[in-house]
């Protein structure tokens, strides 16, 4: 009789598939419900919250948030605090009410550091009703992305750096075990063969290979030349990298991601490094420059990189570090005056005997920052992209032609030098860009 293996397989498999199907359909259902719950506003009475959201974002959100104070006070449930008619006139022209001496209006004005609220005469009663309906929206529960979307997290953890290292380790162990087993098996087999009377031929005693090698003078010569050459090659390579910091990526006191700022949000390099346009140094921005935006942006809401530990909470904590250093009190939306220096670690550094001027390259030559600093807009952690060696400087000066647009000084000198060298386009080297004294003095 033939033994049938896996006789029950079809039924078992279908059961398994069904279970799988059910699992996934349940999760998707749960998600829908969750999102529906967060979208739904609380009982408001009148007004369309969806239309209100658009109006709120266009008109109010510059100064107001729903759940925490910004330039203006938090607006969650503001419709309960004041009379509807009073709110209509306040929103349309608050300053007129303050001047007229409305006690409630004056009180609010004083409470908020006498900040003047922009008048919105164009908003109708229905518009304001809609906005007020939107202000009743409950704060959405913070959902752990792993609970909401388990497939995403599972996928990410299996491809993450830590677990792939574990897999590699396990594989290495397995291979090691295989090697040991193979060794043991051959040993046993040999013993069995010996027990069975198989006699191995004794190997003849030959001249050892190193003696043969020494006897062959030509081979010794070739090998020693080869060894010397390769030793020279590696020694040269090793000595050339001394004093060179390509790839240097120190840990900074605040995890500032160039990828998010310059990449995702497309902020120009010169926005923060404004002195690169007109000074020797491309300055590290003072914290007031950070606060130009981060007075408003106190939380990170963008994409996460869970595999590397860059979660939303992680980034938000980094913004809090900035607040602590600059002395910004979020609750009162004001500076406390207690500041702490942020000890940024300098990455790009030239030796003291070399002179480099940023403005000459950025403003006069119009070179993109990326030419020397690499794809900064993709760097989560900033690192030194170029070697910053003298050979690297010289190479660029030899290859780059001078841009003459709108520069009368270079125009005249260019004509004279072009005649001298008999070329159409002058390189920087031909204009004296290789002279020692230009950078070393």
């Amino acid at each position, binding site marked *: 009789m033939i033994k049938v293996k896996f006789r029950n397989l079809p039924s078992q498999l279908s059961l398994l598939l069904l279970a799988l199907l059910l699992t996934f359909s349940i999760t998707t259902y749960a998600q829908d419900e969750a999102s529906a719950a967060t979208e739904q506003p609380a009982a408001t009475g009148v007004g369309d919250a969806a239309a209100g959201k658009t109006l709120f974002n266009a008109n109010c959100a510059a100064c107001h948030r729903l759940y925490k104070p*910004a330039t203006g006070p938090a607006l969650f449930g503001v419709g309960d605090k004041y009379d509807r008619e009073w709110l209509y006139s306040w929103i349309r022209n608050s300053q007129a009410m303050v001047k007229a001496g409305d006690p409630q209006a004056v009180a609010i004005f004083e409470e908020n550091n006498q900040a003047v609220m922009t008048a919105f005469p164009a908003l109708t009663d229905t518009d304001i009703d809609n906005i007020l309906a939107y202000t009743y929206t409950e704060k959405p529960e913070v959902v752990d992305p792993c609970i909401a979307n388990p497939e995403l997290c599972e996928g990410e953890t299996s491809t993450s750096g830590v677990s792939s290292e574990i897999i590699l380790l396990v594989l290495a162990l397995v291979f090691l075990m295989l090697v040991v087993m193979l060794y043991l098996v051959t040993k046993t087999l040999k013993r069995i063969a010996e027990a069975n009377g198989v006699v191995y031929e004794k190997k003849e005693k030959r001249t050892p290979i190193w003696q043969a090698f020494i006897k062959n003078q030509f081979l010794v010569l070739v090998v020693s030349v080869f060894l010397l050459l390769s030793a020279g090659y590696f020694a040269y390579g090793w000595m050339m990298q001394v004093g060179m910091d390509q790839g240097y990526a120190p840990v900074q006191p605040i995890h500032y991601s160039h990828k998010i700022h310059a990449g995702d949000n*497309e902020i120009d390099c010169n926005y923060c490094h404004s002195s690169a346009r007109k000074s020797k140094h491309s300055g590290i921005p003072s914290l007031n420059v950070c606060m*130009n935006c981060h007075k408003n942006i106190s939380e990170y809401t963008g994409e996460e990189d869970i595999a590397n530990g860059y979660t939303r909470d992680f980034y938000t904590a980094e913004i809090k570090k900035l607040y602590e250093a600059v002395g910004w009190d979020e609750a009162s939306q004001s500076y406390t005056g207690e500041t702490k220096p942020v000890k940024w670690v300098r990455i790009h550094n030239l030796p003291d005997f070399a002179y480099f001027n940023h403005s000459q390259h950025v403003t006069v030559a119009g070179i993109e920052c990326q030419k020397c600093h690499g794809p900064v807009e993709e760097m989560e952690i900033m690192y030194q992209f170029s070697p910053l060696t003298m050979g690297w400087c010289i190479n660029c000066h030899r290859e780059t032609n001078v841009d003459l647009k709108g520069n009368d000084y270079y125009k005249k000198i260019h004509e004279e030098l072009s005649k001298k060298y008999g070329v159409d386009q002058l390189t920087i080297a031909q204009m004296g860009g290789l002279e020692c004294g230009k950078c070393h003095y």
Partner: protein
Amino acid sequence: MKKTINISIGIIASLALISCFDSNRPNYQYMPNMYEPVGYETYGEYEVFPGDMEAMLPVEGSIPRGWKPYDYENTTEGLEKARAELKMPIEVTEENLARGGQLYTIYCAVCHGDKGDGQGILMQREKFLGIPSYADPGRNITEGSVYHVQMYGLNSMGSYASQTNELERWQITQHVMNLKAALKGEPGLLIDSTNVATDSIRTTLEEAEEMEQAVDNSEQETN
């Protein structure tokens, strides 16, 4: 036995080579006394300074060369006063407009948008909300108010006085006024040299350039 020793030497040697590279630490140098500066470097950390910081604020009351006092206060009244009476001290030239456009792209366009309609990338990505268009009638921006807001900031917008100098702020103002006119469908600022003759308040372009030169010099000296 010999073999195992050889293999282990090889492994140790390759490990030693790999472990030398640490991206967290700067590389060692030949003769570091020639690399490291004797004087105080920009942003350096030196014990002689308060908080070990070389980067210090200027002494209170000191003014950079070429700087002119700005008489309007950082209050609502100051803003209204500037809106009503502050006028552009520089001429409208093609060069000023072009510089203003470049600077606008660097400092303003992320929020206010390339066209000044308040649809910059930070607005589209909902980092900032409610950025008004320059043509918004409720705001009624004038050259005076545009300059004043760049100087001190307003509500959510911060001050840009540390990133730009006086001339640059006026150049940006010219570009902003042009954007406002374009949004409203009106003709922009006129490039007209006769302005100088009729209006003695407006300084000539040469003076403006001198101002920039002076500011640049003073900045280079500080570095």
